[in-house]
C-alpha cells in the first residue's frame, strides 16, 4: 500500500463590513426586516446602475497587500451571467480575468517548519440575495413549494480569495484559515464569522501518491460552517478518495455537502450541462484603477501581520499557544514580558488565562511589572496574585507590594493559628475523626481566612492533617 498525499485548495468568501453595499447606498447589516435594505439598484429595476463602493475597493487592496499580492493597476468588473432567483439582475458583478489582487502567499507555521501557501487571486464581487425554500425536503429549489427571497444580503461586498492547491492536510488547511481569518479581522475589513456566513469556505480536495506531482480529479466540499467541520470534511473526503483509488476505482468530479450532524458527505446532483457564465466586461462600470499613491499609503499603513507574529512566537511556544496569543491580540504583551525576563510558557499561561480573566486591558499593562509577578507566581499567595492581576492595568501599578506578601510557610507562625481553629470547631473535629475526611478543606479554609490568604496552602494542609490525626 502506497502512502497518499492530500492536495487541498480553498476558495474563501469574505463579506466586507462596509457601511453600504457594493454598488448602491443600501445599508449592510444583519437582522433588519426582510427586503427593507433594498433599492432599485440592488433589486435590479430597469435602468438602475451600479456605482462602486470606494471603501470596498480600498479594502480589497489592503487585503491583497496583507496577502503579499500584486495589486492590479487596472482591475475590471465583469458580468457573470446565470439565472437564479437570488440574482436580481440575472447576472452577478464580479471581477473575472482582471482581478484586483494576484500572486500572493501566506506563511503557515507547522511543526515541521514554515510552509508557503500560494494565493492565486483575491477579487471583489457582490453577494447574492438569500433564498428560503419552503416546503419539500431537501431545502433546495427543486421540490420546494415556494421560495422566499430576501434581497437585504443582495449586493453586499464580497472578497473571494482563491489559494493554490498547496495545502496537504486538514490540519494545515485549518491553520491557514485561522491565520487568514485573524489577518482579515485585524485589518478591520470583516468580522469573518463562519456562523454568521460572513466567512464561507469551499474546499477542493484530491489525493495523489506521495511524491507524485500530478494533480488527480478533485471534488468540491461546500456547506462547512466552522474550521473544525472543514477539517472533518476534508479528512472524510480524503479517506473516501483513498479508498476509491485503492479499490481500483476512479474518483469522479463531484460537489459534496458536508453534513454537520452525521459528518457525512452528500453528493449534489450532477448538472446535465456545464456552467457557462458568459462573462464579459461590465459596461456599466469603469475599470478599477487605484492610484499608486493610494496603494503606497495602504502598504505603509499595514500593521505587522499575524502570520509573521505567529512564526515569531512559535520560536518559544507551540502553535496552539501562539495562535491563542496572536488571535487574542496578546502576543505583543507576551513578547515584552518575556523580554523583561519572564519564562515564555509561564507568561503565556498567565496572560492567556488569568490576565484575560481579570479584565485588565493588555495595552495598559507594564510588561516589566507583569514579568515580576509571573516570576513570583509560585511564591506569593494565589489570592494576592489574583488581586495584583486585577490591578495591573491601573496607572502607575507596581508589583513590589504584592511581591512582599510572599506566602507564610513558616510552621512556627502557622501552628498557633491551626491550633486555634481546631479548638474553635470541636464539632467538625469530631466529625472528621469519625471519617468525614472531606472536612479537611474546611479547616484549611479557616486558616487561610485567619491569615488573610497569605498562608501557603500546602503547608497548612500538612499541619492540619497532622494535628487532626487521631
Amino acid at each position, binding site marked *: 500500500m502506497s502512502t497518499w498525499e492530500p492536495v487541498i485548495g480553498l476558495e474563501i468568501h469574505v463579506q466586507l463590513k462596509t457601511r453600504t453595499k457594493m454598488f448602491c447606498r443600501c445599508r449592510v447589516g444583519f437582522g433588519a426586516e426582510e427586503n427593507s435594505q433594498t433599492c432599485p439598484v440592488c433589486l435590479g429595476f*430597469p435602468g438602475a446602475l*451600479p*456605482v462602486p463602493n470606494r471603501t470596498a475597493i480600498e479594502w480589497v487592496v489592503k487585503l491583497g497587500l496583507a496577502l503579499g499580492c500584486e495589486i492590479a493597476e487596472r482591475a475590471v468588473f465583469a458580468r457573470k451571467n446565470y439565472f437564479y432567483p437570488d440574482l436580481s439582475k*440575472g447576472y452577478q458583478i464580479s471581477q473575472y480575468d482582471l482581478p484586483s489582487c494576484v500572486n500572493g502567499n501566506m506563511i503557515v507555521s507547522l511543526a515541521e517548519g514554515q510552509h508557503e501557501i500560494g494565493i492565486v487571486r483575491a477579487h471583489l464581487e457582490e453577494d447574492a440575495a438569500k433564498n428560503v425554500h419552503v416546503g419539500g425536503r431537501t431545502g433546495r429549489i427543486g421540490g420546494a413549494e415556494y421560495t422566499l427571497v430576501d434581497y437585504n444580503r443582495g449586493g453586499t461586498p464580497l472578497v473571494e480569495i482563491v489559494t493554490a492547491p498547496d495545502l496537504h492536510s486538514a490540519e494545515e488547511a485549518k491553520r491557514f484559515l485561522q491565520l487568514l481569518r485573524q489577518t482579515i479581522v485585524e485589518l478591520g475589513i470583516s468580522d469573518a464569522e463562519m456562523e454568521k456566513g460572513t466567512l464561507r469556505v469551499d474546499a477542493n480536495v484530491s489525493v495523489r501518491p506521495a511524491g507524485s506531482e500530478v494533480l488527480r480529479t478533485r471534488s468540491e466540499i461546500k456547506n462547512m460552517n466552522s474550521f473544525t467541520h472543514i477539517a472533518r470534511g476534508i479528512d472524510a473526503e480524503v479517506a473516501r478518495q483513498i479508498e476509491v483509488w485503492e479499490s481500483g476505482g476512479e474518483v469522479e468530479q463531484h460537489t459534496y455537502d458536508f453534513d454537520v450532524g452525521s459528518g457525512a458527505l452528500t453528493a449534489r446532483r450532477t448538472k446535465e450541462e*456545464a456552467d457557462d457564465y*458568459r*462573462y*464579459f466586461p461590465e*459596461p456599466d462600470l469603469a475599470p478599477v484603477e487605484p492610484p499608486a499613491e493610494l496603494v503606497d499609503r495602504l502598504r505603509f499603513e499595514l500593521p505587522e501581520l499575524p502570520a509573521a507574529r505567529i512564526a515569531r512566537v512559535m520560536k518559544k511556544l507551540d502553535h496552539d499557544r501562539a495562535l491563542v496569543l496572536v488571535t487574542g491580540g496578546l502576543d505583543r504583551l507576551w513578547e515584552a514580558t518575556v523580554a523583561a525576563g519572564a519564562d515564555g510558557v509561564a507568561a503565556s499561561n498567565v496572560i492567556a488565562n488569568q490576565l484575560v480573566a481579570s479584565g485588565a486591558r493588555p495595552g495598559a499593562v507594564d510588561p516589566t511589572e507583569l514579568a515580576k509577578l509571573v516570576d513570583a507566581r509560585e511564591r506569593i499567595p494565589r489570592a494576592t496574585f489574583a488581586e495584583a492581576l486585577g490591578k495591573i492595568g491601573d496607572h502607575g501599578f507596581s508589583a513590589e507590594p504584592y511581591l512582599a506578601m510572599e506566602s507564610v510557610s513558616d510552621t512556627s507562625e502557622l501552628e498557633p493559628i491551626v491550633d486555634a481553629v481546631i479548638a474553635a470547631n470541636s464539632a467538625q473535629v469530631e466529625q472528621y475523626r469519625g471519617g468525614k475526611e472531606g472536612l479537611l478543606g474546611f479547616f484549611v479554609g479557616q486558616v487561610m481566612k485567619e491569615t488573610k490568604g497569605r498562608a501557603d496552602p500546602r503547608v497548612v494542609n500538612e499541619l492540619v492533617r497532622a494535628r487532626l490525626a487521631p
Partner: protein
Amino acid sequence: MSAVVDTLRLTAEEALALVERGDVSPAELHAAYLDAIGERDAELHAYLRTVEYDGATSIPIALKDVISTKGLETTAGSRILEGYVPVFDATVTSRCRQAGLSVLGKTNTDEFAMGSSTENSAYGPSRNPWDPARVPGGSGGGTAAAVSAGLAPWGLGSDTGGSVKQPSALCGNVGLRPTYGTVSRYGIVAFASSLDQVGPVAKTVRDVALLYRIVSGRDPADSTTVELSEPVELPTSERLDGLRVGVPRQAVALEAIEPGVRAAFHSSLALLGELGAELDECDLPLSFDYGMPCYYLIAPAEASSNLARYDGVRYGRRSDGATYRETVERTRDDGFGDEPKRRIMLGTYALSAGYYDAYYGQAQKVRTLLVREHAAAFERFDVLATPTSPTVAFPLGDKAADPLAMYACDLLTIPSCLAGLPGLSVPCGFSEGLPVGLQLVGPQFGENALFRAGHAVERALELDLVPERLR
C-alpha cells in the same frame, strides 16, 4: 383655451420666450399640446400615454418610453414591462423637472429600442407625419413623429446605433446623439449599455443645444458619466469659415444610399463649402466595412445580459405557470417580441464559452480599431459629414419581415456610435417629398462644433419642416 399657439411651428426657444414673457402660461402650453395630440395622434400613434399638467413652471417635453418616470408607467415598448410603474425618475427626467419642464407623455419606441421603424413596438407602430403610410424611423419614432407633427416642442430619445439620429432624419427634425458618457443613463431601460446614450430631438439646432445643456453633465448615479469639457454654446454664427469637414469616401460609396438622398447630401456639401468650410475626402475603411457586424455582436451580447432581469417576479407582466421555471418561461415567451428574442439568442451565442473569442472578443477588438480610425480622422477634420440614413422614410411593412434590410437602416449611423462619438442629424433637403438628414459627426466632446455647423446649414437652407399635409 385662450392662448392660441401654433404647435406645428413653435420652437422650444420660442415657447420658452412666450412663457418667460407671460404671454402663455405653462398650463396653457401643456394643454395646447395635449389638444394637438388629441387631434392628430390617433393617426400617428406617437404617444403611448400622456400626462395632465402637473404644475411645472416651464414648457412641456416628450420622453421616449425607455426613460423612467416616477409614478408613470414605463414599458420600453414591451409587453413584459406592461404595468410597470417606476418608483424613481431617470436622471434625465429629474433634470428636466428641475428645469421646470412638464412631461407631456411617453412616446412610442421599438421594443427595448431594438429597431429602426417603431414597428417592433408591442403597442403598435407609429406613423410618419409626412406620410402616415410610412414609418417615422426608429427606435425613437414616437418622439420624432411627435416633434415633427407639433405634438411636443421637443423630446428626448435614446440612441444605441442610430435611434435618435435616424428617426430625426426621417421626420425632418434635428437630433443629437451626444458623446458617450456626457448624459446619464441612470433610469434608462438598458438595451446595450456600452452604446446607449440619451439625446435631444427638436425642430432647431439651438433647441437641441438648449436641451442638451439641461440633461448633460456628470451624474454620481452613473459612474460612466463625465463632466462636459466646455459649456454648451448656443450657436449664432451663419458662417463656417475655416471649419474642416471630412467626407468619408467609404460612406459615400455605399450602394444602399438612394439617389434622392445622395443628391440632397451632395448639395448640402456644396452649401457647406459656400458657407466657408473646407471640404476634403477622408478614409474610414474599417468603420464602414466592419461597423455593422461589430455592432450586431456587441449590442445583442449586452442586450442578452440586460434583458435577463425580466422574469415577471418583481415587476411588470407575469404569465403564471405550474412551476417557477414554467412561470419565467411563459412570462418571457409572452412578454418579449420577436426582435428581443432574436437578439437575446444572438447575444447569448456570441458570449458563449468557445465562441466568445471569435465573436464578442473579436468585435471588441474591431471596436478599438474603429475608435482609432476615427481619432486619426479628427486630427485632420473638425467634423465628418455623411447622410444620416441611406433612405427616406419607407412604407410600413416594407422591411418588417427582413431583419437584415432593417439593420441596414443604421449603416451610416453605427460606426460613430461604436466609437462613442457625437453625431447630429440636421434636415438638409427632400427626396420624393420626404425629409433627408445630414449627419455631422464630431470628435469626443465636439458637440459645440456640431451645433455651429448644423445651425449654419439650417439658417442657409431655411427649409419648411412642417409636414406638407399638416400645413
